[in-house]
């Protein structure tokens, strides 16, 4: 039997799991794991180089219960896999050093965290390389449970929110289960090609059902509205680097599966379908915009740095879907590029927040401030990260968002565009809150002794920052991967070069934009450093967040940040989704208690008699 690169990758991934079991627990000894992830990354990178056409088919194929199961990695899977393995490499390196030792001291088990990470990577490989619906479902289930494991590891509150995730994930998984058995019923096979063929003749009702199950079932994982409530708490409570991994890539699996099913497995005829009020494409776009706006403004209200970031993770998923839902070259490029870009800055931001927690034991934005003088590298990482997240040049987040906006405008979708811009506004405001409350203002007394984090922690952060900047200036590199991914599911791509996208009516060359920007910074720096020493001012002669500061506060205005804005938009926060969830649970509980009452009757035979009489009556009909 000949082993190809996909088999090799699976093998290394399994070895990583085994190694994590063996040495994962030894704080500094965990370098072997980083090496193994790096090896995986090399294999994936080599596959990206050589990819094209049919993709790589694993030699491991077997058939069970009369159905064959196989794995096949093509451009789409490779793109997601590259992000997955890359994130894991950064994260495991970060975990293995002093952070891991501190985690052990606090009673956590570093070994199981490492094993959970390696298992997540392996199960995601299984999912991303799925070659038929059966292996897709197996990979989906395993990846969902692996994520649950990672979330629940810390116990306590983490377990509680992980159980909430579990319910959502199971609802999603069962929708997917229904989807695959329905498609199987149509085609008599789990094979992609057979289903594509059979789906041409699918009835209207079945097509709508398939669309619904696909978007809702897989969409739960990516936190699409209204299934988003689980995500932020679950990711935020996952132990530090774990949350970086989950936040960067885990929820994107939902998008992967939606893309795979809608554009590869099922025939494209669904695009023309009319649902009675709008077509599926527009509906998808509006769901995406809702997913951008609501979670982003919820993020702005958070006072915990991890919660804030996790809420943004949901919102940013909306941009990805919005771009892809446009189905034109610019939108697809933007939406799919945003997956990579989001992974880089989200990982950097979570790692930076974890670094702050490592030194100060808190991520409460009301109890931090002024850390820039103590942790300059962490500050730099967060600065780069939030510029990326807010979608401003020269960081990579700008490129993908620009492409999405351009696509919206070209398609004449003004309302969607306004929605996306409102979301971006919320993002900018809230990430400024994150940076300001953590690093700016005056240093708190209890943080006087804080130092920068050790090199094993700042190095991955700085490398990620470099990546965010570099892929911002040269988006052509990730766009190449995106092009392979889009090609494998038959989506269009614009022309692009190293510096950006070439399009009619305005190209984007980030090399020029960044050049202008950076020279602007250079001039500003020259003025700043050339103008002599700075002047001290009275604390009363100052303001923050659009508000005057009074003598009673020291400048660090973090508590009740954006009070004015919050006052304005407060009526919009009614927690409708939270209430909806509670109402459903309450209704279910009432029904459940009534049904339980059937079993707790004083006369146990009563129900039996009623049912008997009904059935006998029915049998005479």
């Amino acid at each position: 039997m000949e082993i190809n690169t996909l088999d090799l990758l699976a093998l290394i991934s399994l070895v990583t799991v085994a190694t994590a079991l063996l040495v994962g627990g030894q704080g500094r000894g965990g370098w072997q794991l980083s090496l193994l992830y790096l090896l995986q990354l090399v294999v994936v990178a080599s596959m990206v180089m050589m990819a094209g056409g049919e993709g790589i088919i694993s030699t491991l194929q077997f058939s069970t219960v009369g159905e064959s199961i196989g794995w096949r990695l093509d451009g789409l899977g490779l793109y997601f896999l590259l992000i997955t393995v890359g994130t894991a490499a950064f994260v495991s390196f970060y975990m293995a050093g002093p952070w891991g030792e501190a985690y052990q001291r606090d009673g956590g088990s570093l070994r199981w965290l490492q094993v959970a990470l390696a298992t997540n990577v392996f199960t995601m490989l299984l999912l991303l390389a799925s070659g038929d619906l059966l292996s897709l479902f197996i990979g989906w289930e395993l990846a969902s449970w692996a994520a649950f494991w990672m979330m629940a590891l810390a116990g306590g509150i983490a377990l509680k929110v992980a159980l909430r995730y579990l319910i959502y994930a199971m609802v999603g998984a069962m929708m997917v289960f229904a989807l695959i058995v329905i498609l199987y019923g149509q085609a008599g096979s789990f094979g992609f090609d057979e289903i594509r063929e059979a789906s041409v003749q699918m009835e209207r009702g079945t097509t709508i059902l398939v669309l619904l199950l696909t978007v809702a079932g897989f969409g739960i994982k990516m936190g699409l509205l209204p299934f988003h409530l689980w995500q932020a708490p679950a990711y935020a409570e996952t132990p530090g680097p774990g949350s970086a991994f989950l936040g960067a890539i885990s929820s994107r699996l939902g998008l992967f599966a939606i893309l795979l099913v809608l554009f590869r497995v099922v025939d494209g005829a669904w695009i023309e379908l009319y649902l009675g009020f709008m077509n599926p494409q527009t509906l998808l776009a509006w769901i995406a915009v809702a997913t951008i706006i609501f979670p982003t403004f919820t993020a702005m209200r958070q006072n915990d740095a991890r919660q804030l970031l996790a809420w943004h993770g949901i919102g940013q998923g909306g941009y990805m879907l919005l771009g892809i839902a446009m189905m034109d070259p610019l939108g697809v490029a933007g939406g799919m590029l945003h997956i990579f870009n989001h992974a880089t800055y989200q990982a950097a931001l979570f790692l930076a927040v974890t670094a702050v927690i490592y030194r100060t034991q808190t991520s409460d934005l009301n109890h931090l401030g002024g850390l820039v003088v103590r942790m300059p590298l962490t500050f730099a990482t967060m600065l780069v990260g939030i510029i990326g997240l807010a979608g401003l040049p020269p960081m990579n987040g700008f490129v993908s968002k620009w492409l999405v906006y351009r696509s919206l405008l070209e398609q004449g979708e003004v309302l969607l565009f306004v929605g996306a811009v409102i979301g971006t506004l919320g993002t900018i405001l809230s990430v400024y809150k994150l940076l300001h409350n953590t690093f700016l203002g005056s240093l708190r007394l209890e943080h006087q002794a804080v130092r920068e984090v050790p090199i094993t922690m700042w190095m991955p952060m700085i490398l990620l920052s470099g990546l965010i900047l570099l892929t911002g200036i040269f988006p052509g590199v990730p766009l190449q991967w995106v092009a392979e991914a889009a090609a494998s599911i038959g989506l269009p791509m614009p022309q692009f070069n190293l510096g950006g996208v070439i399009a009619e009516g305005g190209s984007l060359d980030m090399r020029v934009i960044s050049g202008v920007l950076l020279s602007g910074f250079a001039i500003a720096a020259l003025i700043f450093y050339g103008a002599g020493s700075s002047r001290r001012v009275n604390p009363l002669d100052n303001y923050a967040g659009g508000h005057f500061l009074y003598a009673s506060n020291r400048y660090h205005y973090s508590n009740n940040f954006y009070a004015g804005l919050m006052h304005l938009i407060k009526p919009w926060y009614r927690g409708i989704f939270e209430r909806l969830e509670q109402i459903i649970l309450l209704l279910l509980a009432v029904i459940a208690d009534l049904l339980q009452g059937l079993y707790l009757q004083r006369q146990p035979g009563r129900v039996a008699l009623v049912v008997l009489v009904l059935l006998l009556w029915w049998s005479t009909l």
Partner: protein
Amino acid sequence: MSNSLALVIALPLLAAFLLQPLAQQLGVGREQRSVAIQLYAQLTIAVTLWITLMLGNGVEQQPLSVMMGGFSAPMGINLYLDRLSLLLLVATQLALLLLWPADATPRIHALMLLLSASSMGLALSGDLFNLYVFYELLAVATFGLVAANSSRSAPLISFRYLLISGLGSVLALSGIALIYSHTGSLNLADISATLQHGDAELPLAAFILILLGIGVKAELFAVNGWVPEVYAIISPRLSALLAGVVSKLAVVVIVRVLLMLFPHPEAAQVLLVLGILGVISGELAAWRAQDLRRMLAYSSIGQLGMIFIAFSLSLEFGMLMGLLLSLHHMVVKPGLFMLTAGKSKRWHMALFVLFALSLVGVPPLPGFWVKLSLLTGLVEAGGALNQLALIVFLGATVIEASYLFRVLQNTLPNPPAVDEGHLTVGWNGLVGVLLGGVLVVTTLSVDPVLEQLKQISSQAGDRNLLISSVVTPSAEQQMVVERDK
């Protein structure tokens, strides 16, 4: 030689009746006496296991049919051993050996022996009358075991159980009487032959009566009011035995019989509807349950509902699916119950998670493959009720995952530990590990296991084979001649 099949039932019965006098003769101390009696009882079961395995050799080609006392089919008592009953018989015997209560009084041992004899009789009966007799015996033995419980509510709970069970007996007996009045026979093969010749048609009411009647043991919806309370007070081992093995034995035997006699689509619909109601009520009640054992008890109602749904599919496919679900549940449920005994340790939790994952149907564990086949079958069968069943099935899985994994939070208390004596320390856990091992081995060999079970269920669903093996050709001719007169 083949007559020794009767020994499988007779030996435990005899042992049960001899136990009391023997125990009185034993002059040794209380401690040794208890050990001796347990050894005696378990040895009896081991002997029946040995006999079963010896007889089971040739069953693959030709089922074994024994006419007691040499009377031929319609008249005599008929024991019937095919691959399905062999499998159930061996599973029951193994479960009895593993889950035998330790450190119990002679009376409990005697009741357990009665329970063994009657469940083996259920598995082997070839006619409706004996089915009924063994079913009654099983009920009596179970009352005794529940009532012997030391908890204060035991008398009340076993009385309620008695009420439902009594109702069930009356229903089953009237159903059997209806069948007799239509066909003039109680022998399954004989009735099947009559039906096949088109000489008679059975009324659906008979099906409903028997199903509800015998459904009491099988935790069928509407006659399962006894389940949660009984499982909450009896020991985990007994719960494991009753919920895990005996209930499944009842389901498989009864449903198999009924599906053979009632090929009506309406009969399948009744099964489907009651199954759906069982799933909904059981799973939701389990979700709200306040302690671990009640949760598992309600959950087993839901699981049996799923088994009924499976059986409602076409005869052959439904038989296979029902059998698969039953066997899976037979491994998982006792495993879960065994883990509720005593203080939970870390590896207990790991094992609990393994069982729960398989129950929820996470690939590649066996539970997933069963669910996959069942769901594709439901889609294929089509129809509004089957689609409803599909939705209920999926919804129930979500609820199942929710309550099973809530256990990880350790917020569900165990009811006060049932004293199982010092002999059992570690044994419950060991059985749990063993069952977990069975699950893992099955995961690794899904295909061969499935192949075997397919053959078993197709043999069990073969009407002609049943008729030809029980009713000898000459006897059948004779019957036809008599009927023609």
